[in-house]
């Protein structure tokens, strides 16, 4: 069948023994927009990298237009008309917009860049709705969304046959998303095959013709848009129903309960603007929003790792402004933070599992011999059991544990101090589902025991199904507080983009 532009047959790829893709059969056709959905670690990026020639499959074949191909570099793939836009922007900040676009496919005459190509670059920019960006402007002077448009113009300029967009619309406002979708529809009409990766279900609904769901490196199912409900699609992505993943809802904490953590009018540089929020004992409070809208900074501000924070931060009536983590972790305050990136911020890879778990509690007995710290060790053992930590020996380096177990070590390190308020930054990112379910269970139990839990998350399901209330951040301030029945994916997304419901990017 000649119309199958790209076809993968039984393709497998593993990294150092860890399978990333297992026997994947997949095809996409010209003139269609094909959305790829899946959780982090489902194999989406690996699939894209295979098609773009960044990596090669361990087994199986990739064919384009009916011919088996084997790309040895992204350059090979580009020659075949595959153009890829990765999540991370790939523009050279110190070159001009025009040079960046032309650089993608330079045409030369007698060793000099041809004049006409700049004209084409201009046309490509106009086409994607970036009329206001001059060719001579330096990329470093552009805003994030302008850069994203240049990136898209660069792709259009290369006249792709297969265009891959990996979260390429994540930095765009809803109006610009519409513009880009217009370009995609035009390319589609010209017969370009488009692969579209996005976490935003409504964007997928708006642009895609077909949807493929990936999970744990396997291609689960492909269907036309509209053939499945959103809940069914989410079920396919996570491999079990939401009821199995999340513990049952707890009764809401009455509004009259006094707040444990009380943050009011907190600002920091230009990244936090008058943020006020509160968390009561027994509550799980979510912080959501698009990436880097201030929800990470407010956690750092509360935990005392930012300098020059203004406003008021109180915990059980004690003012925390200006206090640093060594003071905040003391039992009379009782604040703990599970940082965003467990590899760089959470763990000391050169130290053992046990040493990592004891790190936050160090110094409770300043002159004692470490190995005789009986009390905290008994508590650690309880926690290890409670967290169902899977390990070989407590003396093994912590780096030998799986991602999920590493996160449990970070949790144990703090829980051994019995904090009153626990701040968590995206604690389940890149963790397998079984461990996720355990962590959700644990957080629910901790809240039930009276801890105030604040959960910053990029996972909408987590915010909807685990949290009592969610503060949605937009450009450094709280755009909306959602609770109870208001907590839905649509409401979260609308608030994240700071648009009113029904006025968003729905086509």
């Amino acid at each position, binding site marked *: 069948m000649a119309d199958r532009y790209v076809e993968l047959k039984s393709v497998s790829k593993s990294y150092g023994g860890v399978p990333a893709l297992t026997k994947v059969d997949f095809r996409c056709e010209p003139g269609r927009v094909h959305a790829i959905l899946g959780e982090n670690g489902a194999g989406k990026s690996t699939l894209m990298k295979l098609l773009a020639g960044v990596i090669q499959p361990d087994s199986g074949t990739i064919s384009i237009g009916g011919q088996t191909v084997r790309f040895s570099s992204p350059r090979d793939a580009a020659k075949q008309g595959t153009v890829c836009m990765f999540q991370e922007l790939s523009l050279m900040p110190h070159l001009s917009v025009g040079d960046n676009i032309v650089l993608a496919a330079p045409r030369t005459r007698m060793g000099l860049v041809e004049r006409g190509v700049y004209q084409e670059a201009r046309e490509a920019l106009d086409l994607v709705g970036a009329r206001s960006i001059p060719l001579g402007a330096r990329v470093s002077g552009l805003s994030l969304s302008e850069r994203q448009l240049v990136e898209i113009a660069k792709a259009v300029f290369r006249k792709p046959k297969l265009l891959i967009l990996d979260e390429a619309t994540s930095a765009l406002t809803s109006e610009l998303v519409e513009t880009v979708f217009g370009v995609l529809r035009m390319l589609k009409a010209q017969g370009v095959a488009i692969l579209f990766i996005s976490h935003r279900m409504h964007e997928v609904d708006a642009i895609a013709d077909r949807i493929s769901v990936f999970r744990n490196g396997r291609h689960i199912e492909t269907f036309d848009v509209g053939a499945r409900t959103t809940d069914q699609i989410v079920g396919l992505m996570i491999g079990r129903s939401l009821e199995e993943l999340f513990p049952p809802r707890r009764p809401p904490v009455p509004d009259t309960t006094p707040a444990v953590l009380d943050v009011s009018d907190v600002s920091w540089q230009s990244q936090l603007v008058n943020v006020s929020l509160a968390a009561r004992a027994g509550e799980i409070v979510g912080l959501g929003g698009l990436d880097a809208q201030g929800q990470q900074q407010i956690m750092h501000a509360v935990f005392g790792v930012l300098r020059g924070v203004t406003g008021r931060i109180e915990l059980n009536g004690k003012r925390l402004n200006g206090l640093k*983590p060594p003071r905040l972790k003391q039992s009379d305050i009782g604040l703990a933070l599970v*940082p965003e990136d467990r590899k760089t911020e959470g763990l*000391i890879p*050169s130290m053992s599992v046990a040493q990592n778990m004891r790190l936050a509690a*160090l110094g409770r007995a300043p002159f004692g011999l*470490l190995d005789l710290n009986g009390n905290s060790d008994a508590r650690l053992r309880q926690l290890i059991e409670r967290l169902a930590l899977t390990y070989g020996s407590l003396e093994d380096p912590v780096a030998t544990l799986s991602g999920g177990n590493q996160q449990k070590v970070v949790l144990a390190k703090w829980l051994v101090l019995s904090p009153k308020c626990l701040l968590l930054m995206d604690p389940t990112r890149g963790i397998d589902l079984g461990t996720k379910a355990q962590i959700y269970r644990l957080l629910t139990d901790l809240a039930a025991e009276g801890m105030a839990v604040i959960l910053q998350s990029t996972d909408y399901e987590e915010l909807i199904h685990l949290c009592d209330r969610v503060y949605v951040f937009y450009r450094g301030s709280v755009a909306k507080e959602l609770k109870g029945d208001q907590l839905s994916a649509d409401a979260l997304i609308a608030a994240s983009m700071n648009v009113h419901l029904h006025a968003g990017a729905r086509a």
Partner: protein
Amino acid sequence: MKSSSMPLRASAVNFLRDHITYVIFLAITLYFVLFAPHFASVSTAGAVLRITAIVSAMAIGMTFVIICGEIDLSVGSLASFSGMIAALMLDQNVPTYVAALLVLGAGAAIGATSGILVTKLRIPSFLVTLGMLSIFSGLALTITGTRPVSIVDDDFSNLFWNGSFLGVQAPIWWTVVLTAGGYYLLHQMPYGRRVYATGGNAVAARFSGVRTDGVKIFAFVLSGMTASLAGMMLAARSTAGNPSLGAGLELDVIAAVIIGGTSLFGGYGSIVGSVVGAIFIGILGFGLLVLGLSTSIQEVIKGAIIIIAVSLNRR
């Protein structure tokens, strides 16, 4: 506890792999015992341990700094400087113990200065301590206009070099006491755990409520104090404060720490390893001397063996 779960042979192989420098160390010692005349004797052992006491002392302080992920290049010139001010104070009839404590205090203050410059001004420790090296080798020369100052105080000489207690000579006692103290501090106390955490991943340590700046500053204080102590040992040995006594010692000290298995990038290391490294360098120097090789060739062989030992010990 660890090894009991493993078959004996596997754990022996693991031990050898983890301590490859000890194997090389033993092989070289064995070579000297077999081929160097009169090497295998108690007096040789005593001589080697006395010679290495100075490097051992400095290596113990340096271990803390290097595990923190920093470096202290100033220890050699700080030792010269300490020897000089000790000699000058004794010359002014300052009581022996007061002078010794003041010199230690000066070492601590100088270490703290380096530490504060490194952590608060965020200047790389290589540069800060390189500057300190230059400053204190210059100062040591300047105070007396390059003249050595002789020490006639017997208490001082006995305390740091010539004395003996229970039949064991003072420098060996110092090595034992410092090793035990360093071991306790690094391996048994919370401070040591914080040192490993700071060098292993400073960001994660800070997020765990470890004052990484304070941990580093105190490591430099320890290094400064051991350098001062070593300087007084040097002065007592030569019964004079001599402004160039410690010159170049920092290289032997750093080599000892690295040979002992401490990672130059921080996060790994041990006190006993550093002392073994110092003794290794001592045996190497002494053995080559006994074999009758010229000092210039000794340096070449010493350098080559250090590189081989470290390359086999890479993590």
